[in-house]
């Protein structure tokens, strides 16, 4: 059990290091409001989106198309690393506030 946890942390550390110097975009989620709701990113490159929950409810950054799900407690912040994208539009939303719909545009 301990070995498993240590391995998990090691794996976690490895991909943290990998995520360090990527083009980074900031996204604020606040009780169902997205800022910005449209994020323009370069196509064909790994990118990182820093997600900040500035609201008072839990939020979930979710995109089935990008295969990402991240739940954030109020005040929490985290990030998602997205594999190189083909040019195009990729939708994401807040699964806990479904009126909050955003789009990532890869050019």
């Amino acid at each position, binding site marked *: 059990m301990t070995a498993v*946890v240590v391995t*998990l*942390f090691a*794996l*976690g550390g490895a*991909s*943290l290091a990998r995520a360090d110097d990527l083009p980074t975009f900031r996204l604020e989620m606040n009780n169902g409001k997205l800022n910005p709701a449209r994020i323009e990113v370069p196509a064909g490159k790994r990118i990182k989106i820093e997600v900040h*929950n500035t609201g008072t*409810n*839990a*939020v*979930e950054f*979710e*995109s*089935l*198309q*990008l*295969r*990402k*799900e991240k*739940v*954030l*407690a*109020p005040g*929490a912040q*985290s990030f998602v690393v997205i*594999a190189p994208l*083909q040019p195009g539009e990729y*939708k*994401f*939303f807040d*699964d*806990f506030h*479904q009126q909050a*719909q955003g789009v990532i545009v890869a050019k």
Partner: protein
Amino acid sequence: MGQVMFIVWRESVEALLVVGILHAWLANPDHGAKRGLPYLWAGVALGIAAAIGLGAALVGFTEVLSGDAQDYFQTAMVLVASVLIVQMVFWMKRNGRTLKRDMESSLQKNHDQGTWWGVLVLVALAIAREGSETAIFLYGLGFGQGGSVPMSMWLAVAIGFVLALVTFWLLQLGGKIFSWRLFFRVTEIMLLFLAAGLLESGLDRLISLELVPTLVDQLWDTSAILDDASPFGSLVATLTGYRAHPSGMNLLVYVAYWLFMWALLKRAGTPAKQVKPA
């Protein structure tokens, strides 16, 4: 929200089924078994406490883990939840028919020996089992992963539980109109779809963690027909594993899952051999 309600509803009905059968037997004046009732309620309390304990441990564990470790843990939990659902469906298929008879004969034994601890343990285990399954499923659906649970989610849990009470009452009342058999057959199929949804969501996480290849990034795009980023579409996605932009791996795993379930169902459909008492 809908998934939360469904899971709480179905799991509560199962726990209520066990409690209901035991209660009906114990409360029946012919058996003179009323002394067993306090043990029944103590078992209920114990089972609920055990389930809450597991839920709290899950949330606590998440808070300790950081960054990607949390992703790995949550991926594992989603996949565990998916396997648990399938296992539960087939367990109920095998044992559902004899559940009542088995329980009553073990009650008769308790009664003859004058001990009621067996009732307590039986009920506590039934509730802890259904309750902890509920905790794992809810966790797999994102419940509590943010360290707190929104009010609307608690509402969904409450509605699910009230629906279970109503269902239980209706099924007790109108055995002629509604049948347990039909109830379980319909919810079985829904559960298998939900397990497929959890499996696809676990697979997405594995792909996202780059542990599994996509094979083909995007096979097709049906977002014009049903967009999985819309509220309704994401509900369908959770409940069935639907993807508007499936990868090759998504489709492969989905087809393999249903072939496997079809084989299992076919096997479960053939009448089980009677086990003769030794």
